[in-house]
C-alpha cells in the first residue's frame, strides 16, 4: 500500500500565541513547533497500516526550511521518505495545489491528512486536494481500516458516528482515536537522519486568500467568585446580571 501523509508545522498546543506589534505576523520567538496534532494521528495510522499491509509512507510538507526538524520527526516515527515543497503555506488553495501536484499520477492508495491544521484551522486542504485529483474526501475520520481492498471508516458527525465503506484511492482528514500518537524511539531517530528528504520548488503561485491582520481576543475581566455556601446566587446572577438564563 502506498500512503501519502501531509503534515503541517504548527505551534505546540500549550503555546501562548503573540503577534508582531504591527499585527501582520505571528511572533515566533519562544514558540516550539510540532507536527499538527491531527496530522500526527494520521501519521500514526499510516505507519500502522504499513506495518499491517506492507508498502511505503511518504510524508509531505509545504513549508520553508525551518520545518525540516518537524519532517525529520515524522520520519523518525516511521515514514520512509519525505518531500518538502519550499514555500510559505499561507493559503489553503495554494497548499492544496502543491499537494495535488506531488500526488498526481503517483498511484497513492491513501492520502491521509489531519482534519484541520491548528494554526489557521481551515479544515479544507484535504477536500480541495481530493477535488483537484478527482477523488473522494472524508473528514473527520476517527477510524480507518483496509479490509479486502476496501476502506472501512467511521466519521464523526454531530452527536454520533457514521460508518462508511469506500474504495481506494481516497483522501481522509483524520482525528483521534484513529490511532495513538507514536513517540519516536532511538532507532527511529537515528535512521531518520539518513532517510531521503527531497526539496522541490512550488509549482503554482496562485493564492486566493490573504490574512492581512492578526489580533488577540480582548482580555477577560476579573472573575466574580460566588460563595460556595450559597450557590443559588450564581443562578440569580446569570439571570439578572449576565442575562443568559
Amino acid at each position, binding site marked *: 500500500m502506498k500512503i501519502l501523509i501531509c503534515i503541517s508545522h504548527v505551534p505546540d498546543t500549550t503555546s501562548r500565541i503573540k503577534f508582531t506589534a504591527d499585527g501582520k505576523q505571528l511572533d515566533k520567538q519562544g514558540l516550539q513547533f510540532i507536527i499538527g496534532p491531527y496530522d500526527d494521528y494520521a501519521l500514526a495510522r499510516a505507519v500502522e497500516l504499513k506495518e499491517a499491509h506492507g508498502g511505503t509512507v511518504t510524508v509531505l510538507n509545504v513549508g520553508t526550511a525551518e520545518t525540516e526538524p518537524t519532517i525529520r520527526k515524522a520520519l523518525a516515527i516511521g515514514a520512509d521518505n519525505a518531500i518538502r515543497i519550499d514555500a510559505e503555506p499561507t493559503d489553503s488553495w495554494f497548499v492544496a495545489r502543491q499537494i495535488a501536484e506531488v500526488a498526481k499520477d503517483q498511484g497513492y492508495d491513501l492520502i491521509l491528512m489531519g482534519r484541520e491544521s491548528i494554526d489557521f484551522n481551515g479544515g479544507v486542504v484535504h477536500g480541495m486536494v481530493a477535488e483537484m485529483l478527482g477523488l473522494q474526501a472524508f473528514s473527520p475520520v476517527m477510524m480507518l481500516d483496509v479490509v479486502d481492498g476496501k476502506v472501512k471508516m467511521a466519521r464523526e458527525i454531530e*452527536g454520533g458516528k457514521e460508518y462508511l465503506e469506500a474504495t481506494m484511492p481516497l483522501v481522509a482528514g483524520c482525528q483521534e482515536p484513529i490511532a495513538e500518537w507514536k513517540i519516536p524511539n532511538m532507532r527511529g531517530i537515528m535512521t531518520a537522519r539518513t532517510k531521503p528528504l527531497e526539496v522541490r520548488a512550488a509549482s503554482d503561485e496562485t493564492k*486566493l486568500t490573504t490574512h492581512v491582520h*492578526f489580533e488577540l*481576543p480582548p482580555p477577560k475581566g476579573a472573575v466574580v*467568585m460566588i460563595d460556595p455556601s450559597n450557590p443559588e446566587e*450564581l443562578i440569580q446572577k446569570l439571570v439578572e446580571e449576565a442575562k443568559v438564563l
Partner: protein
Amino acid sequence: MSVLVFVEVADGQIKKSSLEAISYGAAIAEKANTQVIALVPGTISGYDLSGLGAYGADKVLHAEDEKLNTQGIRAFGTAIIQAMKSADAKFLIMAKSSLSDIIGARVSVEMQAAIATNVSGLPEINGTFSVPRSIYTGKAFGRVELSTECKILGIRKNAVSLRNDDKKAIVEKFAISFADNDFAASITNVEKADGDILLTEAEIVVSGGRGLKGPENWQMLEDLAKALGAGMGCSKPVSDLEWRPHHEHVGQTGVKVSPNLYIAVGISGAIQHLAGVSSSKVIVAINKDEDAPFFKAADYGICGDAFEIIPRLTKAVKALKN
C-alpha cells in the same frame, strides 16, 4: 447574481446555526443589493419553508430528494454547485460544521472560489472583501481577504444575530442530477443518540472533567443540563477514559463551542481545553481548587465541591423555570 445559503438539516429539522447563516447572507445581500436563496436538502418534517423569509431568505430551493437525508458529502457538493450555477450565486454561505468544511472545499475547487471557514463576524467591503475569522483554535483572530469573484464563507455560531424580517420566502422545488460517483461511498451504519441537544448547536453547555471521578457521577450533570436545556460536553481525559462519548469532548482536539453560557464542572482549565471554549459569551467554572486555571478564564466561579454544589444549582434552576 445572488447569495446562496446552504441549510443543514438534522433529523428533518433545520439547524439553528443555518438560520444564522441565512441572516449572515441577508446582511451581504443588502450591501450587494441582491437576493438571498436558501438551498434546503432532503426531507423536512413539520416546517413551512416559506418561514425562512423571517431570517432573511427571499427564495428557498428545496432539493427534496431522499438521497440527501444522509450526510453524503459529495452529493451535497453537487447539489450546491448546481444551485449556485442556476442562481448565478457569487456567495455561498454555510454554518461552520465538520460537514460544511469539507463540502466547501469541494465547491471551492469546482467554482474557483476562495473559502474562509470559522468566520466570526460580518465582512468589510471597500475595494477588497475581508472577513474576521477565529484562528489558532480560538486563541486569536485574523482578518482574511478573499480575492476571487465567487466566495465561500463558513460562519461560526453567534457571529451574527438572527433577523426577524416581516417576509415570506418563495419556495421552489429544485431537482438535482447526480453524478455516478456522488454516492460511491456507502454509509453502512449511523450511531446517534436521538433527542439529545447537539453540543455545537446548544445555547448552554454543561461540561464535566476528571474531577467528577467516574461515569456514574454524570447523572448529576445530566440533571442540571436537562433543567437548563443544555448540551453536554466533557474534557479530553473523560472521553479518553470512555466515561463519555468522543463527540462530547471539547477543546483543541475536540469540538469547539461558542454558546451563550458554558458551565465547566471539575475541569482544571488546561490551555488545550480553553481553546475550545474561549469564545463562549459567559463562562462559569466550578472547581474545588482555588488555583485552578479555569478561574482565570471564567466570568463567574464557585470554589467548592461539585457534588454539593451541582444538585443545589439544579434545584435553583428548576425553581426559576416553574
